[in-house]
């Protein structure tokens, strides 16, 4: 792999940037791999990278229906944070956060991780009690967090309407300073490039149409380019996980919904952090280009259409304008939908399945991007050993039978 560096930039400028290597190969599938990963998004590519790097398993294929990082990895609002209430989720998201902090160096690719601070606003006494509880829980788990009052919030986010005249006045916020944003495409491309350099085959434009089993044990995947054998198969297909499970012959406790995001026209810097509000239900940050990146809730009905409904856009922008009346005349440039696989307790499923040697990593719902490195890291460990990683164990699909749910719905300070 060509090493990226400041000196390299200079050197290639001298040759008019004509000698850059391709970022990854375009290999023909081998007949059999040690591990086949279905889904070439951030989580799948991270899994492949850590399999090769940490566990030395390089005979790995990532099979992707479209192009790398073209699904939810390219469709999220790029927020990174780990301020979850319950121990199980706090630990896995914090595991991801620690990996974010050194990721650009690790994969020699600038993922533009920017710890600019994430505010979760409180608009009622109950919100503030929940924030205090969550921040205390975070601190006990070794995760940074602060509780701010309305005055402090006002001084840190001057353009936000913190007056008492609003329908939902800002009463305070939690702040995680290590939280922030990262460049979503760069995460997929960086992991893909680093995994490819370690020998992983990235097989694009290849759709998995079924799973081949022998005596009930999975032995590979059927694709539109023929059979690809895999001693273990990991499925990381986000919104399409329910469909994949159906192909494998079982059901998951998941429903797929469209989740929308919007970006505005580029404007001068106005927001230097990430601001989320559960109560008025919207979140906003500003990209380096100047676009406001805005998101909110899912459409209520199941859908795979990768587009959202107008009432949801309207609801989202009402929330943003309620918080930032100054933005009421900013025009929106683009709007899109990604298909998120929501689970009943708003927590992921990282699990063995009823089919031996077939593993699923799904159910990240509306908040998977922030977990990309951690999810890949623990899923790689699970695929390498055949036993679930300690951080992944609580996220087994068995929890929906035992009742040991991790109820992050509404608890995580997130607009689910």
């Amino acid at each position, binding site marked *: 792999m060509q090493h990226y560096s400041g000196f390299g930039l200079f050197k290639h400028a001298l040759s008019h940037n004509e000698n850059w290597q391709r970022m990854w190969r375009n290999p023909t599938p081998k007949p059999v791999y040690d591990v086949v990963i279905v889904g070439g998004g951030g989580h799948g590519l991270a899994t492949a990278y850590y399999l090769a790097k940490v566990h030395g398993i390089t005979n790995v294929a990532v099979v992707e229906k479209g192009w790398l990082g073209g699904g939810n990895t390219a469709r999220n609002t790029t927020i990174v944070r780990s301020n979850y209430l319950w121990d199980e989720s706090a630990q896995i998201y914090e595991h991801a956060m620690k990996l974010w902090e050194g990721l650009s160096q690790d994969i020699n690719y600038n993922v533009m991780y920017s710890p600019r601070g994430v505010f979760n606003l409180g608009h009622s006494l109950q919100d503030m009690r929940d924030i205090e509880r969550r921040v205390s829980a975070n601190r006990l788990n070794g995760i940074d967090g602060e509780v701010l009052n309305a005055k402090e919030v006002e001084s840190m986010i001057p353009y936000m309407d913190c007056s008492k005249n609003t329908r939902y006045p800002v009463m305070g916020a939690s702040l995680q300073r290590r939280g922030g944003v990262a460049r979503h495409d760069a995460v997929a491309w960086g992991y893909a490039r680093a995994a490819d350099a370690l020998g992983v085959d990235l097989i694009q434009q290849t759709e998995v149409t079924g799973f081949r089993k022998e005596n009930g044990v999975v032995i590979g995947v059927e694709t539109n380019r023929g059979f690809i054998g895999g001693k273990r198969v990991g499925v990381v297909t986000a919104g399409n996980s329910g*469909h994949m499970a159906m192909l494998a012959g079982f059901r998951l406790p998941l*429903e797929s919904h469209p989740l929308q995001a919007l970006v505005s026209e580029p404007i001068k810097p106005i927001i230097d952090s990430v601001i989320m509000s559960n109560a008025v239900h919207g979140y906003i940050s500003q990209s380096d280009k100047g676009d406001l990146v805005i998101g909110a809730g899912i459409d209520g009905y*199941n859908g795979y259409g990768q587009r959202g*409904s107008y009432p949801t856009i309207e609801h989202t922008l009402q929330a943003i304008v309620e918080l930032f009346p100054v933005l009421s005349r900013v025009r929106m440039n683009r709007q899109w939908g990604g298909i998120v696989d929501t689970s009943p307790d708003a927590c992921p499923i990282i699990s063995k399945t009823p089919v031996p040697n077939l593993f699923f990593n799904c159910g990240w719902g509306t908040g998977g991007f922030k977990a990309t490195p951690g999810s890949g890291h623990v899923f790689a460990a699970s695929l390498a050993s055949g036993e679930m990683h300690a951080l992944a164990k609580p996220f087994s699909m068995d929890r929906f039978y035992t009742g040991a749910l991790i109820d992050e719905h509404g608890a995580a300070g997130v607009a689910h």
Partner: protein
Amino acid sequence: MLNIFCPHCGESRSEEEFHAAGQAHIPRPLDPNACTDQEWGDYLFFRDNPRGLHHELWIHAAGCRQYFNATRHTVSYQIHETYKIGERPSVTAKASIKSEPKPLAVDHQVAGAKA
């Protein structure tokens, strides 16, 4: 924007008047205490999540406030039909066969209609 025909009101209205309430025709176990953890978990949490035709429950929340069922395509979002609780869909796909009631229990929607 979806236009949804409410079978109770007898007219098409904007989707803003409605709430989706998830998969339809989920039979409630007749004797919950006799359920195994597996059966109860399946009933509570596990859902069909098809790429294709989906039979689902909707409520006309800002209208007649009554529940009804719809058969909708989850990729095109086209609504093939809406029908009242207790009725059976006339448009079905192969994938939806799995959600038919098991002998273990009775579809309370149908049972309710008969009572």
